[in-house]
Structure formats: structure tokens, C-alpha cells
């Protein structure tokens, strides 16, 4: 993987990856809901895009994902684009550093991404919702912390943490499994800065 980490040149394959990734996010969320799983699983696509095409594309996926949710299902989710941008960047960087190559690295990535999500989401939760998340377990913890007189950022942070860290860990492990199964030649499509090698002997003499 010799792709430049912060490359801003996007080839067509990379651009087409973005809507596919957003679709995958949506399906993850849909199925987690249908199977009544206690997780969101709505960032699988963003993480796949970040692993395949780097942090910038991951960030774009995250942002576009929430803007489109905002325009179609839940306007408030638009603001959480910030969280998904953070997730995309974190996964992109860690994958580039080789963390997604083995299961240990993937678990570590999942934990880091979970913490990143908590750090970004908590202030947003406090500004827009007064600190709760709408998740029953998280909010129960919030209520308990609040009744113990803990400051709002701790209660809210813990509320987000108990939901986000397991969720992101599951997401990254799913992404890890999917990456293992992808054909190798597909992966090279998303590297925009590769050069064309010359097979003409006449040109070599020049």
C-alpha cells in the first residue's frame, strides 16, 4: 500500500465507492433494527471506504452519509456528520498504518474509533439534547450519574461510551472480516496515484 495518506485526487472507482458505502451503512442500520440488536451498526460502509481509499474518502462518506440521513429520515442526525467524519479519518489513518491487517490490530482500531466517536458526539449530545442519547441503557446510566450529582459531561460521556465502544468494535470486526474476503484486484482500483509502467523496450532506450 503505497497510496499517499491524504491524497485529494479521487478516481471514478473511489467516487462510486462513496454511494455504495452509504448504502452499506444504511443496510447495517436497517438490519440491526430488524434483528433487534442492541447496536447501531450504521458505520460499516464508512469504515470500509476508509480502509480501501483512505481517511479523506472515509471522512467524505461519513459526512455525506449523515447529510443524506438528515435530508430523508432524521434532520437532527445531520449534525452527527462530525462524528462520522471523525470515524472515517480514524479508521483511514489506522488502516494505513497497518492496524487492519490482523485481528489484534482490528480490535485496537475498534476501541480507538469508539473513543473518537464518544469524544465528538458527547458535546453534540449536550448541546442538542441536554446530554442524553435516546438509547435506553445509556440513558439509564445517565440518569443514575445525574442523580449522583456527577457533572453533565461525565454522565453524557458515559451514556455515549457504553453504546458507542461496543458498537464501533463490532463494526470494525465486521469490516475486518469483509476485507479478508475481498478480491485483491479490487483493492488496487481505489489507488488513484499509481503510475502506468512501460513495457515498450524502445522507450527504455530514450
Amino acid at each position: 500500500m503505497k497510496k499517499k495518506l491524504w491524497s485529494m485526487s479521487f478516481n471514478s472507482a473511489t467516487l462510486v465507492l462513496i454511494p455504495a458505502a452509504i448504502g452499506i451503512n444504511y443496510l447495517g442500520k436497517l438490519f440491526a433494527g430488524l434483528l433487534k440488536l442492541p447496536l447501531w451498526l450504521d458505520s460499516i460502509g464508512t469504515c470500509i471506504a476508509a480502509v480501501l481509499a483512505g481517511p479523506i474518502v472515509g471522512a467524505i462518506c461519513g459526512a455525506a452519509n449523515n447529510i443524506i440521513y438528515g435530508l430523508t429520515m432524521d434532520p437532527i442526525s445531520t449534525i452527527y456528520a462530525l462524528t462520522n467524519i471523525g470515524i472515517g479519518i480514524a479508521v483511514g489513518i489506522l488502516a494505513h498504518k497497518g492496524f487492519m491487517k490482523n485481528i489484534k490490530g482490528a480490535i485496537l482500531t475498534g476501541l480507538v474509533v469508539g473513543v473518537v466517536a464518544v469524544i465528538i458526539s458527547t458535546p453534540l449530545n449536550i448541546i442538542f439534547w441536554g446530554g442524553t442519547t435516546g438509547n435506553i441503557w445509556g440513558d439509564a446510566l445517565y440518569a443514575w450519574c445525574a442523580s449522583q450529582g456527577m457533572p453533565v459531561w461525565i454522565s453524557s460521556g458515559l451514556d455515549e461510551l457504553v453504546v458507542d465502544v461496543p458498537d464501533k468494535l463490532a463494526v470494525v470486526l465486521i469490516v475486518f472480516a469483509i476485507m479478508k474476503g475481498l478480491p485483491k484486484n479490487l483493492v488496487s482500483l481505489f489507488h488513484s496515484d499509481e503510475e502506468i509502467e512501460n513495457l515498450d523496450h524502445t522507450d527504455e532506450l530514450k
Partner: protein
Amino acid sequence: MASLNIEHLKYKYPGTDRLALNDISLSIETGEFIGIIGRNESGKSSLCQAIAGLIPNFYKGAYGGKVLIDDIEVKKVPVDELCETVGTVFQNPFNQVTGAKATVYEEIAFGLENMGVPKEEMIRRIDRAMELLDISKYRDRYPFDLSGGQMQRMAIAGVIAMHPQVIILDEPTSQLDPQGREEVFQAVQKLCGQGITIILVEHNMEKIAQYSNRVALLDAGTLIDFDTPQKIFSRVDLEQYGVEAPVYTQIGKRLNLTIEDTGCYPVTLEEAKTVLLRKGGNDPVWL
């Protein structure tokens, strides 16, 4: 005047060691209908994509030799400029729907909008393309609601509207049901004789024999033969390349019936009829 010239074309996909195209040279005249045959992974799609400039400009990898259309060297022209010279239709019609347009009419406009074609000209070209592909009646339908055959004809219309000199159809019917296949072949037949050079990759040898002026037989990235369908399908070693000759040729081979002036076996129903009639006077030979 040859319109399409391929000179010593070699190509390796990134991260592979095998030459997907190994020193291919051939030339094609304007308006010819060329069939490309060979087993899976023999280099048919790679050859198509090299003519369309997608190899090497989309895939990168290692490249040698030249593909020239008139005097344009495709490697040196970005794909987005080349698409007004060479048009490509792919296997899966579903993947060719842009997903950004609400009607068939708008869908066909996609390429023209990108190329900056003025609106009046755009409307003229779309109407003409829809007529040619016989999809005018689906004008206001939602692209994803079409059947496979209709969708594939819409994809061809989108490519034809760009007015290319060469159009490549890479297994355009392999994902379709029998009815969809027939629809697409009828559309392809209509395209013949429009003065466009057509290159068709197809597993149905009857169709290849029916339409092609010449056929390129590929195996393991090398060009085994490039000749008339009669010559190609009369080869005794055909099965070695994973190709089964058209049923008329097989009958000809079994019955040892050849066309008099070329010594080849018949490849189409018409030819088979002629040969049989000649052999048996006015009555078919078996009477």
C-alpha cells in the same frame, strides 16, 4: 484506410505477473463488425478495454505497444475525451444505470450533459438514439423499473448518443434472460450498417457468425487468429481454445459439406442452406 490499428499491444494488470494481453496486432476497417471469441480469461474483455482506453488509463498496470483510432493514440487521450470516439457497453445493465436520473430520457442525456452538448442538440440525439434502440415508449419510465433487455438497450442508447465511431459491446447479453437477449441482438443488428465500427464479445457463436465480418480468436492473452467467421469456425483445433463452432458449422463438419469457392464449412443457416441445395441440385441433399 484502416480506422483501428493495434500494434504489439501488451498489458499486465497491477499486482499480477501474467500478461493479460500478449503482443496483439490487428487492424480493423471503418464500419466492420468484429466478433471477439475465446474462453473465459482469454483476454477478450482486456482487449475491449484497451481499445476504449480504459486499459491503461483506468486500471494503470504495465502497458506496451499502441492502439490507434485513425491517428489518435488511445493511451495518450483521457477516457473522458475518448468516449466521443469509442463507446463501450458492459455486461451488467444494472451497473450501467447511473442512478442519478429519474427517467430513461434523462438517463440517456447523462453523457451528453457531461460532454457539454447544447440542449437542442442533446434532445435531437436522445430522440434519435431512443428510436434506433426502439425504447421511445419507455421515455418517461424510471430507469430501474425497466427489464434487463430494456435496460441494456437504454445503456446502448446512452453510448450511441455520444456519436462514437467505434462501439464495443462486451458480452452485452450474458446477464439477460432469453427474451432480453433477443431484444439486444435485434438492437445490435440495427446498429450494423449505421457506418459505426462494432466490436462484439459474445459466447453465442451463432450470433457471432451471423453478424461478424471478421472474428478474432483469443487464448491466454494472445491473438490465435483473425479472419472471416467461415475460416475461424472451420479450424480443426477450435475446441482446444474452448470455443464450440455454430451448430451449422458442426453439421457441415459432420457431413463434410464445404462452401465451394472457399473450402470452408458453412457458419449460418443461410450458408448451410446454400451448400445443401448445391449438393443436392434443387432438392436438399438428404432427399
